[in-house]
């Protein structure tokens, strides 16, 4: 089968959908107490609130599985958008200030409004959006070129990082909240925490798929894209907001999950090439599968103890990324 042909792409997507379904089933079934497939089906059919299996499934496993799927999808698509729009293969949500903005607001809430700590997810999301808007408004003063966005992202992140460190120095008690946020994890997630962020993720994902072809045109470079009738500055702004919406939403309930947004788009490109109309859904599927897998490992590796999923991701993601870089240097990667 010819790589990048329609039938090849369909096969890849079908294969990933099957893998995702398997991952979802495993995620619901495996944990500190194992629940078999037949028990899962029974529990979901009977919906008996007194049943232990049903309570575990509906209040713990399903929200957690959904959180892994949503976070993986959101961070991967956000990374794919940024790498494509900024034409920078090392771009990830952190490059446009998402992580630093969310981090600052998390610390601010914990330090100055401890009674409102339940709003920490909303605060992280708002922080991410504000940081991105700041990055874009600075970059747009110099024409919003790709380099201007990357450089102002670095500057804003560094400035916000300094603000966060200042708050932490003055209010050291907030460091625990910050550490949990930095590592990232999916335990203790409820459907309530997911609903708003999930809505944003689905919305942004659909828009990203619709704008996939426009993203391809943007890859021709600013002048060629403008000459083809694309409003480059406006579209780049829309993509930045989409990337921020996706990553900010994921961060708001899962904390900073490292490497998903960086690695998954790379692997997706190896699989299906650079056409964003295919790359976006494949990144979403692969990101969800990768996050589900890491979360499963986080739960079972040291059972009954559980480690935050962010740690597993960094352990798997770091070496894998080094492997990709070495391959790329040897010219064996997809370029």
């Amino acid at each position: 089968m010819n790589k990048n042909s329609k039938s090849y792409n369909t096969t890849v997507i079908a294969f990933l959908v099957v893998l995702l379904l398997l991952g979802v089933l495993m995620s619901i079934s495996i944990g500190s107490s194992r629940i078999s497939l037949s028990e899962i089906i029974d529990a979901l059919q009977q919906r008996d609130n007194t049943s232990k299996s049903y309570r575990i499934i509906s209040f713990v496993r399903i929200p957690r599985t959904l959180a892994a799927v949503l976070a993986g999808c959101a961070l991967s698509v956000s990374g794919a958008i940024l790498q494509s729009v900024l034409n920078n293969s090392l771009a990830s949500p952190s490059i446009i200030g998402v992580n630093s903005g969310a981090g600052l607001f998390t610390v601010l809430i914990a330090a100055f409004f401890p009674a409102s700590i339940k709003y920490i997810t909303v605060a992280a999301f708002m922080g991410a959006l504000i940081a991105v808007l700041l990055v874009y408004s600075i970059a747009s003063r110099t024409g919003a070129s790709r380099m201007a966005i990357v450089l102002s992202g670095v500057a804003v992140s560094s400035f916000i990082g300094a603000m966060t460190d200042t708050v932490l120095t003055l209010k050291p008690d907030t460091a625990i909240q910050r550490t949990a946020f930095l590592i990232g994890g999916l335990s203790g997630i409820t459907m309530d925490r997911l609903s708003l962020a999930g809505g944003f993720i689905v919305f942004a994902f659909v828009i990203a798929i619709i704008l996939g072809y426009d993203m391809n045109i943007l890859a021709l470079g600013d002048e060629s894209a403008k000459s083809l009738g694309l409003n480059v500055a406006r579209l780049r702004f829309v993509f930045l907001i989409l990337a921020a919406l996706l990553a900010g939403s994921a961060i708001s309930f899962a904390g900073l999950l490292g490497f998903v947004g960086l690695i998954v788009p790379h692997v997706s490109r190896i699989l299906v090439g650079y056409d964003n109309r295919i790359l976006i859904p494949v990144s979403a599927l692969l990101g969800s599968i990768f996050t589900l897998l890491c979360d499963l490992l986080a739960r079972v590796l040291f059972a009954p103890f559980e480690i935050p999923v962010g740690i597993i991701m960094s352990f798997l993601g770091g070496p894998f990324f080094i492997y990709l870089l070495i391959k790329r240097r040897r010219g064996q990667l997809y370029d």
Partner: protein
Amino acid sequence: MIKLNNIAAGYNKVEIIKNISIDFEEGSITSIIGKNGCGKTTLLKTASNLLKPFRGQITLKGMDISSVPNKELAKKVSFLPQLRAVPNITVYNLVMHGRYPYLGFSRTPQRLDKEIVENAIENMRLEKYIDKNVQNLSGGQRQKVYLAMVLAQDTDIIFLDEPTTYLDINHQLEILETIKKLKQMGKTIVMVLHDLSNALSYSDRICLMENGEITIYDTPQAVYESREIDRVFNILSTQVAAEDECKTQYVFCLK
């Protein structure tokens, strides 16, 4: 056709071109020549509406181009920059990008789009590269693919920024012959060329620039006879007749 009236333009509030008034003739090839940094590319970008002028007006068939929506303008005017990102896609898909202004909301190419793309590929004799990745092609082949994309965009006016730079002589001539073919199709071509000999041989009109202003805009013969090229570039130009084809050629040497 496309008319610039008292245009001044540049970057970061610095004027690069000024007092530019020019009317590019329909169905002709115009070459913009001049020393490095004289504002050739700035003029090209301004005329194609990629760069907003500080003052003055640009009209296309009497219509102010700043009032034409982006996609509508892209159906009338195309611009091929000198430096471009080379995307990791096939020749067919890149040429199909030329149809972007014509695609609907779903961005799905219709039968007509596919036909136009296939014709453009055939016109540029790129059939055997159709499924090849653009990144794996040579500079000359890549340039032809971009010209095929411009052809697929199907605009009356085509602006080309140094289309032959970095190409070997064979590919240079091939690209210039292709540009002549575009003219025969009724297109208006305005290009920046560094090779004076090619500019004088292949163009219907020459626009010579100096310090952001147009020094002379006339036929190649008239521009040659004015000796303005010699003055601007500080060279000595001579017109010679090529032996076999009785075609006029130009040679240049330092004064």
